[in-house]
C-alpha cells in the first residue's frame, strides 16, 4: 500500500494523535505524518476537520476522519490484522464502555487538576483518583484490558498513566496511587514498556518541559 494513501495530521505532544499512531503501528500500516503547528492550523486541517478543527485527522484515500476513538474503530475495521476489539459482542461492548469511561470520566478531572488551583484542583484530583480506581475494575485482574496482549482500551487509555504521572509531578499531587490502585499502576507500567508503544512515545523530557510551560500559561489564565 502506497504511503501516500494514508495520512495522519497530528501534534507531537498530543496523546490523542498518539493513540492513532499506536493503532497504525500495531497494524503495520505505512502512513505519511503531517505535524500541525497548533497556533497556526493549516488550511488542510481546517478543510479536513471543519467541525472541530482539531488533530488527529486520519485521511485514507482522500477521505478524512476526525475524533480519535472513531478513527481507532475505523482502523480496526479497515485493516483486520492484529485486531483491537475482541470478536464477542459482549466483550466488545465492555471494551467500548471502558474506553468511553476513560475519556469521559478520567481525562477531564486529570486535565482539571492540571489547570486549576486551590480547592478546585483538590476536588479534581480526588475525582481523578476515584475514577482511575473505577477504571482499574475494568481490568478484571488481567494484565492488559485486551488480555495477554494490547487491545482497544489499552490503546485508548494507556497514555493516561504517563500524562497523569507527569501532571502529578508538575502540580505536586499524586494522581496514581500504587497502594490503592496497584493493578492500574502495574498496567500503566507494563503498557508503556511494550516495545511498539515505547517507540511511538514523544521524548519524555521534551514532553515534560512542554507541559510545564503549558501549565504556567493555564494557571496564569485561571487567576
Amino acid at each position, binding site marked *: 500500500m502506497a504511503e501516500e494513501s494514508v495520512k495522519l495530521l497530528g501534534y507531537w505532544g498530543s496523546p490523542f494523535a498518539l493513540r492513532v499512531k499506536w493503532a497504525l503501528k500495531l497494524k503495520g500500516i505505512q502512513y505519511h505524518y503531517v505535524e500541525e503547528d497548533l497556533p497556526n492550523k493549516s488550511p488542510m486541517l481546517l478543510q479536513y476537520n471543519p*467541525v472541530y478543527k482539531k488533530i488527529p485527522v486520519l485521511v*485514507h484515500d482522500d*477521505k478524512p*476522519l*476526525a*475524533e480519535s*476513538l*472513531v*478513527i481507532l*474503530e*475505523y482502523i480496526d*475495521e*479497515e485493516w483486520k490484522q492484529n485486531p483491537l476489539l475482541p470478536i464477542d*459482542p*459482549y466483550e*466488545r*461492548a465492555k471494551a*467500548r*464502555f471502558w474506553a*468511553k*469511561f476513560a475519556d469521559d470520566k478520567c481525562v477531564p478531572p486529570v486535565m482539571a487538576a492540571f489547570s486549576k488551583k486551590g480547592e478546585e484542583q483538590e476536588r479534581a484530583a480526588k475525582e481523578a483518583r476515584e475514577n482511575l480506581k*473505577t477504571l482499574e*475494575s475494568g481490568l478484571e485482574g488481567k494484565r492488559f484490558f485486551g488480555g495477554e496482549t494490547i487491545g482497544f482500551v489499552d490503546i485508548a487509555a494507556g497514555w493516561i498513566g504517563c500524562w497523569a504521572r507527569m501532571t502529578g509531578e508538575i502540580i505536586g499531587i499524586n494522581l496514581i496511587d500504587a497502594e490503592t490502585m496497584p493493578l492500574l499502576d502495574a498496567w500503566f507500567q507494563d503498557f508503556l514498556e511494550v516495545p511498539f508503544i515505547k517507540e511511538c512515545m514523544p521524548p519524555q523530557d521534551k514532553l515534560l518541559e512542554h507541559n510545564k510551560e503549558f501549565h504556567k500559561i493555564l494557571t496564569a489564565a485561571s487567576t
Partner: protein
Amino acid sequence: MAKNDVKVLGAWPSPYVMRPRIALNIKSVNYEFLEETFGSKSELLLQSNPVHKKIPVLIHGDKPICESMIIVEYIDEVWTSGPSILPSDPYDRAIQRFWAAYVDEKWFAAMRGLRSAQGEERKAFLDQVTEGLALLEEAFGKCSKGKAFFGGDRIGLLDIAFGSFLGWLKVTEKVNGVKLLDEAKTPGLVKWAERFCADAAVKNVMPETEKLLEFSKVLAAKMKGAPPPKN
C-alpha cells in the same frame, strides 16, 4: 426467544432509553421494559450499572450492557438476521459514529444549556443549537444521498442517535417560542423528522410532545428545589 431473556431498564421520557428500544424494534426482538420510578433507582439498576447508575441498561440473559450507543451497536452485532443498523463500509460506519458522537457531545449539550440558561447565555446556546442543526442538515444530505434516512432506505445508527432527541427538540421549541427545525433553513431534516417519528420502529416509543412538556415542567420544578450544584 423468551421475552424475559432481553430486558431494558429505562424510563419513557429519556431519549437515551429510546435508542435501544428502537434498535430492538428494528431487529424484531421481544423485550421486557422495566420502567424506573422517577427520582429513585432500583436495586437492579444499581447492580447492573454500578459505574454510572444510569438508564438505559440492556440486560441480555445475565449480561448487562450500558451506555445507549454502545447498546445499539451491541444489538446490531448480536441480532444479525435483522436489518443492519450500521452500514457495511468502514468509512460510512465511521461517519455515522462521528455524527452520533457530535450529536451527544456537542449538539445536545447546547440543547441542555438552552434549557437552563437565562438572558444573554440563552442566545449563545440558541446560536450553538441552530449552527449545529445547519451542520446536521448538511450531514443529512451527504449521508442519505437522496434517500429517506441518514442510514439510507432504513433507519440507521445516526437516525437513532439524533432522532431520539426529537421529542425534547419539540418541547424546547414550545418552551422557548422558537422554530429549530425550519422548512427554510433545514428542509431535509424537517421531512426526515416526520418520517423518523412515523416509522414502525419508533412511533410506539417516541413520547407525545404534550406528555413530555408536562414532564419537563415537573423536572424543572424538581431542579429548582434541588440544592445548587457544586462545580
